[in-house]
């Protein structure tokens, strides 16, 4: 282990102090719920790019992208390329996100209510929060395992370390909301990027590009360069990831929160275009770290958990001094993701799930108090869920399956809401139902002994593709079979609304 507490510990301590100071500094600007949830819609392009990039790169991202690199070689970066392509196309065309931002809503379910009614808004809010929180539940433990592997910290302190870190994040998120998130995201983007780039250059210089390519050739073969010929990937992996990433670009709450906090729709589109290529880096850079682990470490050194391959490599290859920068970068990645995720899921709980309880407009002070309490409760959930859920299979697949719980239905609802006149509440309800039940059943089947073998046979990709197709069909069929409301007769004196 190359982590020196006096040198590297000081760098990490300095970073944590600066983050806390920046996060707390802006709390005085939060006077309204709109400031808390969408920063008063005053965010401009470059801050938006920094915030979106920092939020979408967490330790968990680094871990699964490196695991992809270790297991699938360069082909493991395929989801990043698909996401970058989806984001660029959406940024260029404004597909869905332009009408969404122009509507002036705070969350997607709020827009859905205008087309499908309040019940659909509520149900959409529930699946968004369910999928989002299950997804986020893995962040804390994975982040902790990374730090343990990297710094040589005694594993018995993992829970305590992650609890303290979460407390840090919760304090500034609760006090400053989206404003604190944006300011700390900016700082975290800079630290994270410098750390990622420095370590990647170091790895390429020490291991050599030729050795990396050779390792993929010898250990994985041509499938390490081409996902279509990899035995564990194939067309179903590519198609599932194309659907998943397109849906994420359109509806993932933390991504959409940046569009909704942007000054206007044009700024939102610029943020999408400007950030799109980052999603290639997001998979490719940690993927190279994973490939380096494949080249340097023996399978015995890695052990059965391939998630640990990359941190084990870094703990031996990164020198003192740079190790502090790396740990600070990874803490930055973790904190920016946690804060943003806590805030955005809380915004859906407050804005949509609690909407029926706010028949009359609440005072700003009361709204702020509730938002802060919800952020705190999400933090507590994270702490407990992250510690007991046993992860089966690879991390990216778990995240994909839990994300599909809401991405499949909400993306279909959003597209139908924006572009299909005949879409109605029956179609929306059917889409939400199937979107939640299919991936939810798959997760349950994985955990139950008697059905685990069947779940393995079906696999997450076919299950995921089927979800998107069935949800789309459910929206169309449900909307078409709903009886048209009979026009009121003029002689009854009824209104013609």
């Amino acid at each position, binding site marked *: 282990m190359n982590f020196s507490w006096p040198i590297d510990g000081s760098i990490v301590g300095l970073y944590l102090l600066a983050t806390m100071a920046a996060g707390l500094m*802006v709390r*005085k*600007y939060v*006077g309204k719920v709109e*400031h808390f949830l969408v*920063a*008063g819609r*005053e*965010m*401009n*392009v*470059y*801050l*938006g*790019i*920094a915030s979106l*990039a920092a939020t979408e790169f967490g330790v968990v991202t680094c871990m699964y992208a490196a695991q992809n690199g270790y297991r699938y070689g*360069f082909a493991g*970066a395929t989801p990043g390329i698909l996401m970058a392509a989806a984001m660029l196309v959406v940024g260029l065309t404004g597909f869905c996100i332009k009408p969404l931002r122009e509507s002036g809503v705070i969350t997607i379910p709020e827009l859905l209510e205008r087309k499908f009614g309040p019940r659909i808004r509520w149900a959409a809010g529930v699946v968004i929060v369910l999928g989002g929180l299950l997804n986020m539940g893995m962040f804390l433990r994975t982040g902790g395992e990374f730090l343990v592997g990297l710094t040589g910290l005694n594993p018995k302190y993992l829970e305590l370390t992650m609890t303290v870190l979460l407390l840090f994040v919760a304090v500034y998120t609760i006090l400053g909301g989206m*404003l604190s998130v*944006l*300011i700390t995201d*900016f700082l975290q*983007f*800079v630290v994270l*990027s*410098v750390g*990622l*780039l420095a370590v*990647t*250059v170091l790895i390429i210089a020490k291991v050599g*590009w030729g050795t990396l*390519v050779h390792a993929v050739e010898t250990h994985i073969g*041509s499938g390490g*360069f*081409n996902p279509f010929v990899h035995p564990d990937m194939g067309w179903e992996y590519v198609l599932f990831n194309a659907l998943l990433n397109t849906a994420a670009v359109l509806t993932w709450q933390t991504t959409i929160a940046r569009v909704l906090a942007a000054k206007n729709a044009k700024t939102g589109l610029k943020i999408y275009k*400007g950030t799109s*290529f*980052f999603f*290639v*880096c997001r998979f*490719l*850079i940690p993927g*190279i770290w994973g490939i380096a682990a494949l080249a340097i470490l023996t399978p015995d050194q890695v052990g059965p958990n391939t998630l640990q391959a990359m941190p084990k490599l870094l703990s031996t290859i990164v020198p003192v001094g740079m190790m502090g920068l790396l740990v600070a970068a990874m803490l930055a990645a973790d904190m920016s993701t946690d804060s943003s995720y806590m805030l955005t899921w809380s915004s859906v709980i407050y804005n949509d799930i609690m909407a029926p309880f706010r028949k009359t407009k609440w005072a700003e002070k009361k709204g702020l108090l509730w938002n802060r309490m919800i952020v705190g409760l999400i933090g507590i959930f994270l702490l407990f869920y992250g510690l007991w859920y046993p992860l089966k299979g690879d991390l990216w697949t778990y995240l994909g399956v839990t994300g599909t719980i809401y991405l499949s239905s909400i993306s279909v609802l959003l597209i139908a809401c924006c572009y299909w006149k005949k879409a109605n509440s029956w179609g929306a309800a059917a889409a939400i139902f199937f979107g939640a039940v299919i991936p939810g059943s798959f997760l349950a089947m994985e955990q139950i002994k008697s059905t685990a073998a069947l779940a393995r046979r079906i696999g997450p990709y076919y299950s995921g593709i089927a979800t998107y197709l069935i949800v789309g069909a459910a929206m169309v069929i449900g909307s078409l079979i709903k009886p048209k409301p009979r026009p009121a007769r003029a002689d009854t004196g009824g209104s013609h609304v």
Partner: protein
Amino acid sequence: MFSRGFWTLLTGAALIWYSTVTVYVGWKGIRDIKEMLSRLRPGPK
């Protein structure tokens, strides 16, 4: 051979693009933060 060249080029492009964007966004982002906070500054009631 083509796919190996593709990944080499993509990695090079990613490192150059990311380094440039880090410096540029880091510089311009500070201005965005200043502007955002000045617009949100609590005024006299």
